[in-house]
């Protein structure tokens, strides 16, 4: 370019001290502009029989990413609607459609009508089918993370997950098989194994991610939660029969209905709380044992606060029929900003742009199509 001048590649001036802490802030741009844009998006989705959603999600991400500031600098989302859209079409043609055809054949009950097929063979087919479905979900999640990270920039530097999808397919297959054949008992092992693979492949401006934790650290918590769920089920059964006894003696349907409603909400809250215990333990462990270059992360959320966040968001979505979804997104981001702490910030001048992740052009598959968070 004859008309442009370019400076030499001299090292840039450090402007952030090493080992500094960095805050995650959500810059308040107002909830109403987000809700207004969301309402427009919903209207356009209806007009375009749903197809506009890929562009709608992109617009919302562009606005929200920009409002999230890390160390005082905003994030930037550079993904496009066409990428997510084509990614979805690709998944539809190569995964959903074949899976749908298999589903149709299974639904037709062809193998059930074959006199040679016995019960155990059919169960094995069903089990393999479940493993394949879970594996595809796992792949969808991976593609989603990879795409979002490759399309997120901070200080102009993009992130990257340097793990080809074909390699992750092995991880996904192993994860799905472990979950199904252990009856979900090994879910925490799979979760941490997945985190190890994803964090280990992370590259942000030349800073490599590492997860130094093990894969078995959450098994005790998970088993305790299972026992908790069992006790809750037994408690519910006892209370149920006790209530039937009272209702038969007192004969009050109103009392019975009120107790059932409040009891149901309490059980729901308790179930949510127990699962939140696991989620908080998971994030605490992953953050504690993960580093990206010199950057360390700490998560100090509690199960109670996460339960309040989740329950509140469900209520908002249910009562507003999804029209106030941006409020729930902001609540999530604020929660993250309040409970994730980062230290050991590198000199920004040491961050070097990594190559564009061309493999992510195909979008994010299925998992991220409808969920902003």
């Amino acid at each position, binding site marked *: 370019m004859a008309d442009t001048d370019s400076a030499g590649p001299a090292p840039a001036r450090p402007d952030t001290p090493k080992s500094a802490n960095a805050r995650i802030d959500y810059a308040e741009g107002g909830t109403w502009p987000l809700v207004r844009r969301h309402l427009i998006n919903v209207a356009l989705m209806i007009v375009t029989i749903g197809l506009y959603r890929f562009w709608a999600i992109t617009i919302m991400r562009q606005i929200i990413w920009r409002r999230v500031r890390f160390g005082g600098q905003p994030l930037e989302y550079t993904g496009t609607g066409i990428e997510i859209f084509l990614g979805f079409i690709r998944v539809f043609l190569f995964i959903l459609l074949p899976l749908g055809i298999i589903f149709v054949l299974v639904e037709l009950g062809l193998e059930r009508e074959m006199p040679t097929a016995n019960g155990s063979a059919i169960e094995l087919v069903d089990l393999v089918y479940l493993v394949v479905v879970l594996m595809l979900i796992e792949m969808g999640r991976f593609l989603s993370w990879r795409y979002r990270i490759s399309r997120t*920039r901070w200080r102009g530097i993009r992130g990257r997950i340097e793990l080809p999808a074909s390699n992750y397919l092995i991880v996904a297959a192993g994860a799905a098989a472990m979950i199904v054949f252990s009856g979900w008992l090994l879910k925490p092992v799979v979760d941490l194994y997945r985190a190890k693979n994803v964090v280990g492949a992370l590259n942000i401006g030349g800073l490599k991610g590492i997860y130094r934790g093990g894969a078995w650290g959450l098994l005790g918590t998970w088993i305790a939660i299972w026992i908790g769920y069992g006790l809750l089920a037994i408690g519910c059964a006892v209370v149920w029969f006790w209530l039937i006894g009272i209702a038969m003696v007192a004969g009050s349907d109103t009392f019975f209905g009120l107790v059932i409603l409040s009891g149901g909400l309490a059980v729901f809250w308790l179930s949510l709380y127990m699962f939140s215990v696991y989620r908080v333990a998971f994030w605490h462990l992953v953050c504690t044992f993960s580093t990206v270059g010199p950057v360390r992360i700490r998560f100090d959320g509690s199960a109670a606060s996460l339960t309040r966040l989740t329950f509140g968001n469900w209520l908002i979505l249910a009562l507003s029929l999804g029209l106030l979804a941006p409020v729930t997104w902001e609540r999530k981001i604020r929660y993250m900003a309040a409970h994730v702490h980062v230290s050991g910030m590198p000199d920004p001048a040491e961050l070097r742009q990594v190559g564009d992740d061309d493999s992510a052009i195909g979008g994010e598959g299925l998992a991220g199509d409808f969920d902003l968070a």
Partner: protein
Amino acid sequence: MTSISPEDQRGPAGPQGNAHLLDGVTGADHRVAILAEARGLRILPADPQAAAPQCPLLWPWNRVYRPASAGEDMVFAMLDAQDARLTPDLPEQAHAIRQQATGDEREAGHQVFGLRRRPSAALAIGATVAVLILVLISLAPLSGMAAHLLPAGTGGVSSDQVIRSLVATHKRCTGEDGDRALTDLSRRLADAGDIPTPLITVIDWKLVNAFALPGGRVVLTSGLIKQSEDGSEIAAVMAHEFAHVIHRDPMTGWIRREGVSLVLAVLFGQEAAGSIASTLTGTLLDATYTRDQEDRADHTALDLLRANGIRSDGGQAFFVRLQAQEAGGSLGSLLSLIDTHPGAADRAALFGGAKTGTGPGLDAGQTAAVKQMCR
């Protein structure tokens, strides 16, 4: 030091000021002065002692654009250095740059499957809707072909489960003479259609209805039998259901509905807003396909009656009675859109005008025996 105070905003070369530059090569901040020239936006490092930005320092106006990823912020990028970002300090400077910048962001980035990375949403949506409409139109013949590739008895076991669940709530009607009469008529109609004789089940249900299921199963309700005035009406209805069996319509419909659901899932995704529209679209499409199937089944039914010399005015009488129950006026026109069957008046006329024979299908004794089954 090349720094311009905010107060000194406008000079002969156009708006000038200070800005924050990320060069897209490293994460370092660069404080720069900006100068609007005729050729483009000139970037001048504010501190000559500091490392210079590693991006072009003259941004021609036709290469400058405001990236969509900037969201609500006034940030600028350049086509020749797409990772670089320039953020003017003051909104007035940003607005002045925006007015002169003529770069097109759609020229930035990689192509996706030969398409621009940022084509207009309308183009992509329009093309996809066209493809999906094509898929929806071709689904009907494709599902018919698929159904004919499957063995005739396919789906029989599943249909038997459906019948068992129906019998659990509505008693099965039986009677030796009635069963014999229906079996005899079934055999004659099936022979004419060159198909294995379908299995007939009569259930005690007030609803006036008859339907065919995959695998050659046909269900008649007691409501339909009781309302029939003679055997030719029952024969006409059975011939119609046997025609569905001949054309494999139940299996075709099943495959088609699954296909339509799949395509609609692509169109609507999981958005709650789409679910009503999705259901409505699916119902309208299914109704259109089904009306065609019903029309074809009526014509085949007349062939079956003709082959057995059974008169068709029984069918006419049946549809005339049905016509009396249909809604009329504008409501009727609206409902006809989602109706799965052609109008009863047209069907009555079709059966009335056909000269298929003079036999009753079931004689008076047989008809009485069939009517006795549900008492």
